[in-house]
Structures are given as C-alpha cells and as structure tokens.
C-alpha cells in the first residue's frame, strides 16, 4: 500500500508533460499580464486607485520597474531560463500584486494560478524544452526524469475543483433551477453569445436542463479523469465547459486549465507520443 502511495505521488518520470504545462502557463500569464500594461500607474502605483492590503503602493517609476521585472521573470519561466529563480520570483510577485490590486477581484482562478505557480516552483518543469537543458545538457529537447509530484498536485486540484464546485451546486438554493443562468446571461458577465441565446427566448426548461446536465457531468468528469477508460471523455467535457464559460460569460481566465489536463495522462505516454511524432 505504502509503495502504491509513494509510486503515485513520487515516482520519477519523463518531464515533457510538465514542461508543456510550464510553457502554456507562462504564455497565458504573459497574456494576462499584458492586459494591465496600459494601466500601470492607475492600478499599481500610489498615484492610482489602489487600496493595498499590507504594503503601500510604490511610485509610478517603481511600479513600471516592477512590472518590467515581472515580465522578464515570466519570460524566464516560460522558456525555462534560470527556472527556479524565475518561478520563485513569479510566485512572490503574484502575491505582491494580489495584496496591491488583485484582491479587489478575488477570483478562484487567481487562487488556482498562485497555487499552480507554487507547485511548479518546486518542480522539475524545466528539465526539458528549456533554456536550462540547452545550457546544461546541450539541447532544448534533452531531458532528465523528474518527480511526478507537481503534476499530481495540479491534477488533484483540477479534479477537486470540478468535484467541489459541482457538489456545492447540489446543495445551494441558487443552483436548484436554471434561473441562475438566465439572470447571469443578462447581467454584468453577459457576452455577445449569451445575449444571442437570451434573445432566442428559450423556455425555462431549457435552462433547467442545462444546469442539471452540468450538475451531473461535472463530478463525473472530476472522477473520470483518473480512470483510463473515461479520461479522454472527461477531459473533453472539461475543455468544452471551460470554453463555454469563456464564450458565454467572458470568464476566460480558467482556460489555462485546458493544457494542464495533459498531466492526467501518464508521462511515459506523452513522451512516447512526442517521440512517435518526431518532436524529440
């Protein structure tokens, strides 16, 4: 039993899936950070509209400097250059921006992003497809095995988020009918597509059905990702769900979980697949 437990959490495996997640997450964070680029003084300096939790906002010059450092660290994280330094810096800069401005928008995805950064910070996500491997092993595609722990923790969190969010839907009065969807589609999170659907004037039974389907499929997907037979179907559901959330509610930040789902596949299989496709 102990051996199974240790094997599940700690075995050494090819790092390719983790490296792909590192690159995708880094690119996502660069895009995310770029949405703040034109508003640094307003959002991150003492001459803007900040209400920091702990540390006072800096001058605009310092705010610009910190933003530039953040971008540099994110680039280092993405290409795996001096990865450990960059990942630690990204995590702490993330916390800094949280206390300064992001706490005004305390979303689940910002929390999951911070958690993912913390996990990757201690991982071997730079052990292939990185500047670090080029520097130390002579090739971008050279690799060394790494512990699966980081990947397992990220998978566990994705799975539990889907299970937790669906179980609470069965218990919360707000989720008992499709009314939540109808009001959300005409509220502050409405998008062009949700507006079109609203104007179709579909019966309330349609919205009830959608909510029921989500409530049934979400926990099944959260469990199904761990079972080889149902893995692909569960991941396809998770992907479709996150894409629909982005299109219908404009909540696009969860899409960083889409590439992270690659971690549910055995790392050896990802390695074999990449070899077969001549990527390696």
């Amino acid at each position: 039993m102990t051996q199974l437990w240790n094997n599940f959490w700690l075995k050494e495996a090819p790092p390719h899936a983790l490296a792909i997640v590192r690159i995708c997450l880094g690119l996502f964070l660069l895009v995310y950070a770029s949405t703040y680029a034109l508003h640094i003084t307003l959002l991150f300096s003492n001459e803007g509209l900040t209400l920091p939790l702990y540390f006072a906002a800096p001058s605009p010059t310092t705010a610009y400097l910190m933003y530039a450092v953040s971008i540099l660290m994110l680039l280092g994280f993405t290409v795996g250059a001096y990865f450990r330094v960059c990942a630690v810096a990204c995590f702490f800069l993330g916390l800094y921006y949280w206390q300064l401005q992001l706490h005004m928008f305390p979303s689940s995805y910002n929390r999951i992003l911070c958690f993912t950064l913390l996990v990757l910070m201690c991982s071997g996500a730079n052990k292939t497809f990185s500047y670090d491997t080029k520097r130390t092993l002579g090739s971008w595609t050279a690799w060394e095995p790494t512990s699966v722990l980081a990947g397992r923790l990220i998978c566990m969190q994705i799975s539990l988020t889907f299970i937790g969010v669906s179980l609470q839907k069965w218990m919360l009065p707000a989720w008992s009918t499709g009314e939540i969807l109808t009001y959300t589609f005409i509220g502050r999170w409405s998008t062009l597509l949700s507006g079109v659907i609203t104007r179709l004037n579909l019966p309330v039974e349609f919205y009830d059905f959608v909510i029921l389907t989500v409530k049934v499929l979400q926990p099944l997907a959260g469990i199904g990702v761990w079972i080889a037979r149902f893995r692909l179907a569960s991941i396809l559901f998770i992907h479709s769900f996150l894409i629909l959330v982005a299109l219908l509610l404009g909540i696009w930040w969860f899409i960083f979980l889409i590439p992270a789902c690659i971690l549910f596949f055995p790392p050896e299989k990802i390695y074999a697949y990449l070899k077969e496709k001549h990527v390696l």
Partner: protein
Amino acid sequence: MYITATMSGMMFTLCRVHMPGVPYILSHWSYGMLAPFQSYLTYNEDLVALGRHSGGLWEAIEMDKYRTHGKGEESIKMYLPMYRSLPEEVLKEKYEEYAEKLRTLEMNHGNTWEEIALEMHTWPRSPGGYEFLRVPVFTTVTKL
C-alpha cells in the same frame, strides 16, 4: 499540508465548517479554489461618483477612464470585496480613501472638485440590455 488544507476547504465548501487546527488562510484559500460561482443577482449595480463644484453644484464624474477591464471584473472591484468581511466602519473608511484618491486623479485630469461622494445605483436586470431599466423609476440610490 496540501491534503489537510484541501480537506478543510472541501469541508467548508460543503458544510461551512473549518477543520480545527488548519490555518484559516490555507483553508480559506483552498475553499476559494473549490467553490466559485455560488449565487447570482437579479439586479445590476454601479458605483457612481459625484463631484461638488466650488459653487455647490454636484455633477456625475465620468468613471469610464478609470475602468480598465471588462464589466464583470469592474463590477466586482467596486464592492471592495476584501474589506466586506471587516466592520462597517472599515469599509466606509476604505470608500472614503477611494474617493480621496479619485479626487487627486481628477485634479491631475484638470477637474477640481471640492468634495467627492460615492453612491451605489441599483436597477433590475432585463433581456433588453444591461442599462435598459436604468431609469429613475427603477433605480435605487444608496449613499456610501
């Protein structure tokens, strides 16, 4: 640590009980990752800032230039969510601090106000559009 924090977060998600011995910040952070989107509103709200001219006349301040992101994100920010769980006086102080910062920013834009007052405007949602029912007869004004 991760497993304990997650169990506590899940317990809070499902039963609203924190597991004893688990630091609140870890438990609450985990809960935040497990339980997005719990409820909905049947109305819309907007933070409105009014500036007082030296002559005493109040005028609505154009806030769009301070809203940098989408409507959803901005509409959460205006509640100052992290200060909501604190005593009412703290939240009031924070809104006053917000108004003061706004006054300085406005001054930098060439608009001098003697005073700035914040109000929350509330109106029902409508398939006709976000602002469709934002008319005096349907709009409730709450001074902050």
